[in-house]
């Protein structure tokens, strides 16, 4: 149990991820200048989620964890967040 699970991320890979994150930041700002109506917020959230995924997988090493427990529990948490927000809208969207 002691040995630290193998994979060491190379600087190159990390830099590449940072590059992607920068590009996505620029993209999201550009997208926000285009008026897509309600789609704007969804586009922004989508891009944010992609960015978050990169951070999670590489910076936070999630991709390289040996134990599945990390990924499973993380997904469960995100699922909870989605359900709570989603279920709230049964109320706020349908009030008379």
């Amino acid at each position, binding site marked *: 149990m002691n040995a630290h699970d193998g994979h060491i991320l190379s600087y190159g890979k990390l830099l590449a991820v940072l590059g992607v994150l920068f590009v996505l930041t620029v993209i999201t700002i550009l997208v926000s200048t285009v008026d897509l109506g309600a789609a704007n917020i969804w586009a922004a959230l989508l891009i944010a989620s992609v960015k978050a995924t990169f951070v999670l997988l590489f910076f936070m090493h999630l991709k390289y964890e040996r134990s599945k427990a990390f990924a499973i529990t993380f997904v469960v*948490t995100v699922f909870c967040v989605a359900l709570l927000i989603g*279920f*709230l809208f*049964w*109320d*706020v969207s349908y009030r008379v």
Partner: protein
Amino acid sequence: MTTETYKPFHQTPMPPKYDGVLGWLITYDHKRIGMMYLTTLMVWLSAGILLGLLIRVELMARGQTIMDAQTYNAFFTMHGVVMIFLFIIPGIPAVFGNFFLPIQIGADDVFFPRINLLSYYLYLIGGILGVLALFSKGPPDTGWTFYVPFSVTTRSDVSITVFAAFILGMSSILTGLNFITTIHRMRVKGMKWFQMPLFAWSLYATSWVQVLATPIVGITLILVIVERLFGVGLFNPAKGGDPLLYQHLFWMYSHPAVYIMILPAMGVVSEIIPVFSRKSIFGYKAIVLSSMCIAIFGSLVWAHHMYVSGMSDLSVMIFSLLTFIVAVPSAVKVFSWVSTLYKGSITFSPPFYLSLCFIYLFTVGGLTGLVLGSAGTDVHVHDTYFVVAHFHFVMFGGAGFGFFAAMHYWWPKMFGRMYNFKRAYIAITLLLVGFMLHYMPMFVLGLKGMPRRYYDYLPEFESGNLLAGIGAVIMVSGLFLMFANLLKGAIKGEKAADDPWGGTTLEWSVPSPPPVHNFMAEPSVKSYPYDFSDVWKRMNLKTSTPPKSQ
């Protein structure tokens, strides 16, 4: 694990070198921490009980009896806060979970012993802050739900209590996190998930709820303080805020919290029933799965507290439907416990008696929960004494009796001494009778329409309230006797054997009280945690059928 000579944990300082009081205050032995929780919790419980009693005395007669309305409001608020945040939520996990979870899974401690100690101190500080509010100039008068906008506008000291609840939440999160990691990483070699005792399972389910739901109430309570300090207006209707959102956030935690209260108690009962039936539990996997289902689906029914709050009819429907769905896993458990008794060889004992009471009282509470879950009927009884009766049945009759059962079950293991059975039986009977007399009339009062949190009431509610008051007094005597008996047992009771009941889980394989690292030798894991063949052998029993695998 060298074969050391046996020395009970309370005689072996942990960390070493620190003896005496300091050896307790800075200990990170899970058993000592469990004992410290027990002691502290008893103090808060007494405060909660006293407040409950004062409430009852005030309500014995109409009009002012012993206190004015403001005091009454503060008292029921503090009663609720103390009972919920200081007694029933931390209760079983912090005391018995800490003490027995590591032993049950063959570990020598929890995964983060120091964080465990930190949780305890957070609990202590939170408790002191919370109870301190009682002695401030204006103790909070909002009800334990702290509904806005009242909690933001009232002049009483809401912030301090709310902050206390926040700290207690942190304590609860850390405990949960600790237990999950412990269960994931520290099960003794060879113990697979489905070989864990049910109590450990129930704590696992509970811990997840603690980790994921508690932060939401944390931030909500912080917002109440922020609102009081800075007047941001997030919940203030005059500034565009929506008070219903507060209620949503509050119940997103506080409904799951009711399962934080009941699941560990269910775990305790799932341990006790098979032991005194001398046979394996009926439907081990179903019980495990129902715990997990309760934890998961229980998080999706929060708005059943809000049927008349003005939220949309659609969400009334959805949350009502889901409420009925989560009742089913509880049903599975009740049926499994009762079936476990079938063809057992039942010996009676105080923990067993309490478990039977638990099943009965929880069923009453749960079934009346269905009345509340149904939308049309809840409109009539919402915020009446019907709800008060419901939750005392599930919380006191359920989680509380579970706590008492755990005390009686594990007492000999914790203290190495046994209490007096006869006195225990008398106490439990008094408790049960007082309980019924106290809370049954409340159902009727509620159906008749008596609102809760009422300092004074209409003449038609007089007799019910008087009856309840008398019940409370009987309950006092029962509880008093029970605690006195346990205390006496712990000090001067007969020495208890390592396995006085004939249990199968690992805690019964170690000396009473356990040594500091729990196990004298590497624990051996049973392929099925409730395999009683060893117990039968020891008791010279033969079974009529060979164990079937499930």
